[in-house]
């Protein structure tokens, strides 16, 4: 009877510990996330939240189990099981280590628009195991952290301004200096192109059908795509108005004497 009573008391204690542990984990982890997000960044905040939550839950469960059985034997068994699980979960461990490296390296944070290898999107979450993106065409993409760490990463939102590079070919008969003048005026007169760094235009190479020029104009990052499209339209219009031809690829074929007559007869 006494033993049953003791077991009931232990069970009640265990339940209280488990419930209290859960409540503490649920409330402490978001609070910690809030503080770390404010002080460091959202990325580390989210990770700290997950780590704290699972650590507190594990601690509460172990303490609750400790009410019934001796934990020394359990921990020894857990050690052996840990080795077995560790061997079976090498990929996960690799992901966790990569996640930690990404955390230190910080090539991006939550909310950044990035390109990871072949994929592009906005970072919506990063855990110890994986990084989640919302692709620009609104798909949910989960990339394991070891893949992210081993890929080429481009962060489109790291800096506030970006350079629009626009390649334009003009016909060989045109005066290159005049075309450069027209394009630089076009870029300088565009209201949304930054005054400084100043827009630049260079002649870059002799192509098959054109002399190639490149226009470089700096714009606010948030307006990059819209302004790139606008600058392309304005450049075409400016060159047309100045009577400068933008050629399409063409080939001149020279035929030997009498060849045209032969072709006509055929």
């Amino acid at each position, binding site marked *: 009877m006494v033993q049953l009573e003791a077991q009931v008391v232990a069970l009640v204690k265990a339940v209280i510990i488990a419930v209290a542990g859960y409540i503490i984990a649920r409330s402490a982890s978001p609070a910690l996330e809030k503080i770390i997000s404010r002080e460091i960044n959202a990325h580390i905040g989210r990770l700290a939240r997950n780590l704290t939550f699972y650590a507190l839950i594990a601690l509460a469960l172990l303490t609750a189990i400790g009410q019934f059985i001796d934990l020394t034997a359990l921990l020894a068994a857990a050690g052996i099981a840990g080795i077995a699980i560790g061997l079976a979960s090498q990929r996960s461990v690799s992901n966790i280590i990569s996640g930690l490296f990404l955390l230190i390296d910080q090539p991006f944070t939550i909310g950044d628009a990035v390109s990871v290898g072949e994929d592009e999107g906005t970072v919506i979450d990063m855990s110890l195991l994986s990084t989640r993106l919302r692709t620009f065409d609104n798909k949910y993409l989960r990339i394991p952290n070891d893949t992210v760490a081993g890929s080429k990463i481009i962060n489109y939102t790291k800096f506030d*301004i970006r350079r629009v590079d626009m390649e334009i070919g003009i016909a060989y008969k045109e005066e290159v200096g005049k075309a450069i003048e027209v394009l630089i005026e076009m870029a300088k007169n565009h209201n949304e192109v930054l005054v400084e760094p100043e827009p630049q235009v260079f002649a870059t190479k002799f192509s098959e059908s054109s002399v190639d020029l490149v226009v470089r104009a700096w714009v606010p990052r948030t307006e990059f795509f819209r302004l790139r499209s606008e600058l392309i339209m304005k450049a075409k219009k400016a060159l047309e108005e100045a009577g400068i031809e933008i050629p399409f690829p063409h080939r001149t074929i020279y035929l030997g004497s009498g060849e045209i007559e032969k072709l006509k007869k055929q």
Partner: protein
Amino acid sequence: MHLKVGQSTSEEIGDKSFEIERVSSYLVKIANEEKQWLSGVAGDVEVTTKYAFNELPYFFRFPNPLAAAPKTLLKIFLKLPLVEKLVLISGGKELTIHSHMENERKIWHGEVYKGVMCVHVEPEILTEPGNGEFANLPVRFSNKTDDVLSIKKFVLEPEYMILYQGENGLYTNKVYVDIVGENEVKMTYGRGTTDKAGKAELLIEQKAKPQKSILTKFTPMMHAKYFGF
């Protein structure tokens, strides 16, 4: 203009015109060429235009450097473009319907990877204060060194600026620009304005208390220039 129920008014700001109508005690309808929307109001409703400083710092870039002889003080006025705002005032609160600044162009101050977005101002020097949709900015350029120095750029922080309604136009507080090197200026923001403003009435107070003096360096975009980027 104070709007009563059923009354309407037309207002033009920049290149846009707005039709504002008080449709009921609690609603005002605002419309322009592109769209229309409703705004909740309470009590007395007033539609008015106000001047404000741009939220971005003002980046003054002289087309030709302004040379300052050794140990000299140059007192001039510069035109400071202001933002014109169409506002609806109701229940002690302001709702900005539209804001406009003439020839607003943005310019980057700093390196391409680290800097601040500013609004570009091509300095227009006035020997005497003017009256228009701008503020007269009393600037004192000083060169305390023994060398001839020139100034090409300086940046004005809007939160340290004060706007006054003078007797013959709008004025800001005095700004002291100490040229300390070819690409280095020390800015000091005064509190008062010039005597030429006459009896000046305060319109906009400083948003922040400035430091005693602010040193600004204009570093050329080294890596970009080196590689021709």
